[in-house]
């Protein structure tokens, strides 16, 4: 459950960072004109904050040692997943990220109810 939550946050954070990159912004939001400098910076900061938050969640939920290992591991899986998606199915990235985020929120709800 905690892993699902951390993964959802990590994936969303990475996608936010990706949107701030012109190459991937063109893939994710083809209709939009390039982001303004301010908006790109906001995406980057938002993405970084999400990643930091996901690390804190991992450390809190899984303990220091395992939490750190799990965070790095999930980061690896998310980066690899995004690399494959951007290469073969860029239009699915946003949908998959939303699903992962919903699953993460569901994981919180299940964790709370349990």
């Amino acid at each position, binding site marked *: 459950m905690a*892993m699902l939550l951390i993964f959802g946050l990590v994936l969303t954070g*990475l996608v936010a*960072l*990706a949107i701030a*990159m012109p*190459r*991937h912004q063109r893939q994710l939001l083809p209709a939009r004109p390039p982001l303004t400098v301010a908006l790109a910076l906001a995406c980057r900061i938002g993405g970084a904050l999400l990643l930091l938050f996901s690390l804190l969640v991992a450390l809190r939920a899984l*303990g*220091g*040692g*395992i939490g750190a*290992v*799990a965070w*790095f*591991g*999930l*980061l*690896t*899986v998310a*980066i*690899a997943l*995004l*690399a*494959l998606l*951007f*290469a*073969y199915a860029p239009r699915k990235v946003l949908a998959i990220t939303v699903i992962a985020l919903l699953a993460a929120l569901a994981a919180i709800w299940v964790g709370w109810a349990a």
Partner: protein
Amino acid sequence: MKDFFRQSMAWLHTWSGLVPGWILYFVFLTGTLAYFDTEIDRWMKPEMPPARFDLPAALLVEVAQQRLVAQAPEAQRWFVGLPLDRNQPYLRLFWETADGERGNELLDPATRAPYAARETGGGQLLYRMHWNLHYLPRDLAWWLVGAATLGMFVALITGIVIHVKIFKDFFTFRPAKGQRSWLDAHNVLSVSALPFHLMITFTGLLFMASTYMPLIVAAQYGTSKEGQRRFVQEMFGATRETPAAGVAQPGVALAQLLASAEARWGGGMVDSIEVINPGDANARVIIHHGGDGGVLRSGESLTFHGASGGLLDTRAAVTSTPKAVRDVLLGLHEGLFAGPLLRWIYVFSGLAGTAMIATGLVLWVVKRRQRAAKSGVGGRGLALVERINIGTVIGLPVAIGAYFWANRLLPAELPGRGDWEVHAMFLTWLALLAHAALRPVAHAWTEQFAIATLIFALLPLLNVLTTDRHLLRSLPAGDWIFAGFDLAMLAIAAGFFWGLCRLPRRIAATPASDVPEPLAELRS
């Protein structure tokens, strides 16, 4: 100035990666499989019943003691490993006599006798090959693996330095673009698992630190045997060196001492029990706590007097901070603490590292061939690397597949069948290297991808023909070790099939890439 620096880093990256590349591929592949060592062990011994973690420790300890008293009453040391989780799935007995004779058994608590199972090295042998290699004297193997690991570490760091667009290309993989795609793949595999690669390489070196840097211990303790013994005693405690009194005295029942430990720690926490000088007046019993499930490998241990049963010493999980740091680092490498999901992530990262090495080896050949096509100078070096690449990148996995095939095909009564399984593995590897040397390059890739697809796809079928723990039974029964292994073989076969369809063209015949050669100005 800056260009020269990056140029030399590129040169260093190429050669520190290429020269030990095939050894590193072997180390990474066997190491990755080692995360499933006990699962592979169990698949290779289908006669063993599924592991059970619910048997009471007191019963297991009593069975173990009875067997050890019968089998090794004169031993200097007994070891009993209790089945707590997948790291130790069965009750394990080990003993050592004063003459250095050793014995090893997996004991069935129901029959109070060892399980009757085929002799095999199992997954443990693949795991040990990861640093001992095979057929080589141990020390030579350790130095070879160490040198290769150092090369890996240098390659990782120089790789980071020369990866100019590391953030810009973070998620970049552009397939079907020739050399560019191989470089992208190499980069994504390296960068996405970079924390893992750095950790695994550094901690790998750390495992053998006292071999590679013996003077550090020697500076404090001297080079004499006495000095070395003192070091070991300070690190691990002196109890194991307790001299025998030479007076026979019946030891207190281990189950009773176990009860003391469980009263202190709670049930299900005892991981192993050691008995020093069993049956002697100076016997000692050390009971080990399995650890709290965190990354630190060690737990508390209790030392009892073997004859009287009195508690002599309590050793905390952390006795020295530097040792604890070392234990945490080694614990990260081994990943024994990892639950199922985290273990799969370790395997994923290990496979990424293996593929990183493979794509690096292929990339070197692709770049060289392009350069050779322009300048007309082929070079025997290029041909050599190209052939060994095929025979190793595909050949080694096929050889491991052959190891599994041999496990099912070799008769159980064959003397030394465990050794013959390994011979089958290395003979297969040799055969595929020969095939790669003799066939035209493009054909060699295609044929080896095809062989790999078949050897893994047919393994579950072989399992149906040779055992009754095959997919048609294991899936409905929820026998996840066997079902999981067979399904993993099918997945690997699917991977090689994808490779067969897509890759040989892209490796062997490099079209002139219309994307400019990266770092073209940096000759390597």
